[in-house]
């Protein structure tokens, strides 16, 4: 069992045991919603270019863990560090900027702005970061082509299929060059073939750009795209390391 890990020296924490940089780490996270304890000391570690699946039954706390690590929720106790900086004490404005510039998000559905075209949706994070319209749209066009949906650029999300919409969401998550992508059940609303296509594109693009991906899923075939898995049950995370 690798969790909970032994205390790390600062040098180890910065480089990770396999030499690649630790991007994001949650340690001993606790979070309650009223009387319900959602996280009870959970944690995990994500390195650059690594895809980690977070698995567990419904209500186990896996989405709460993702939201705490992404700075969307503040844990009641425990620490979240991103590239060595502790997030838990940062003001909302700093967390918001971090999410906009360093993190990308892909959810199960309902994440694209319905009034905007797919091209405008993908360009949106860049526009919010102050990139000029022309440049933002050029990069959005490149990313739509990269995830094989260049043909839906001018369509609104409601005019595309579920599989196309998720690929547009992947393009939007990656367009601003994030270091970490948080994907919460990204294929949950798709059939097998479209789900696999989305996963293949997400994983390939992330590996090429050295992005760490935190993938929350209850589907084993989706988790099989990850490099390793962390299981969350009753708010506690656990990682099994097999011999051989």
């Amino acid at each position, binding site marked *: 069992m690798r969790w909970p890990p032994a205390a790390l020296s600062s040098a180890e924490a910065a480089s990770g045991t396999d030499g690649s940089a630790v991007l994001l780490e949650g340690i001993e996270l606790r979070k309650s919603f009223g009387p319900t304890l959602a996280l009870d000391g959970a944690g995990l570690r994500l390195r650059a270019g690594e895809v980690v699946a977070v698995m567990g039954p419904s209500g186990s706390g896996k989405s709460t863990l993702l939201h705490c690590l992404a700075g969307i929720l503040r844990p009641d106790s425990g620490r979240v560090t991103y590239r060595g900086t502790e997030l838990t004490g940062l003001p909302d404005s700093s967390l918001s900027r971090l999410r906009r510039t360093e993190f990308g998000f892909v959810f199960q559905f309902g994440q694209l702005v319905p009034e905007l075209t797919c091209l405008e949706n993908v360009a949106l994070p860049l526009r919010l970061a102050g990139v000029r319209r022309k440049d933002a749209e050029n990069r959005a066009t490149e990313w739509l082509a990269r995830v094989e949906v260049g043909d839906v650029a001018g369509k609104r999300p409601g005019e595309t299929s579920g599989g196309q919409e998720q690929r547009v969401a992947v393009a939007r998550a990656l367009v601003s060059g994030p270091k970490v992508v948080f994907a919460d059940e990204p294929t949950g609303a798709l059939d097998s073939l479209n789900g696999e296509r989305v996963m*293949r594109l997400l994983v390939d693009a992330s590996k090429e750009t050295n992005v760490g991906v935190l993938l929350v899923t209850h589907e084993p075939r989706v988790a099989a795209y990850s490099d390793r898995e962390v*299981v969350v049950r009753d708010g506690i995370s656990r990682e099994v390391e*097999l011999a051989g």
Partner: protein
Amino acid sequence: MSIGHTLLGLLEAGPRHGYDLKRAYDERFGHDKPLHYGQVYSTLSRLLRDGLVEVDGVETGDGPDRKRYAITSIGVTDVEGWLATPEKPEPYLQNTLYAKVVLAMLSGRRAEMVLDTQRAAHLRVMRQLTHRKSKGDLADQLICDHALFHLEADLRWLELTASRLGQLAEEVRA
């Protein structure tokens, strides 16, 4: 399924005669396939030879002598190792997994560990298949998909079992 390990696991609760062991095995794991007496005694002889069980006492009566068997410390270590080792991911291994989960509960060990270790072993094979699929032609992809769907079915059963461990523990200990 390993009959030897299962009998050892049952002996962890306390010494038993061969006849009692057969009854305990059949009651918990032998619904479709009860053990033959010959299997029980040949297995116990082997366990005795290997030092995994010892004779705890002999009762004499009208019939043949009845030996009572107890697990040794080497036997406990052997069960421990068996429970901690995932089964090779392949279809229809739920009998063995079910036995491991029940025996872990009976002996006060954490049954989730058995399931988590097995999930990790399954996912490792599924990753290899997914990687192979991404490099292969359509025929290769379809063959990999067949294996992936079977392994996924196992994992879904594992998840369902994991979510019912509390209920199962109550029934096992009843």
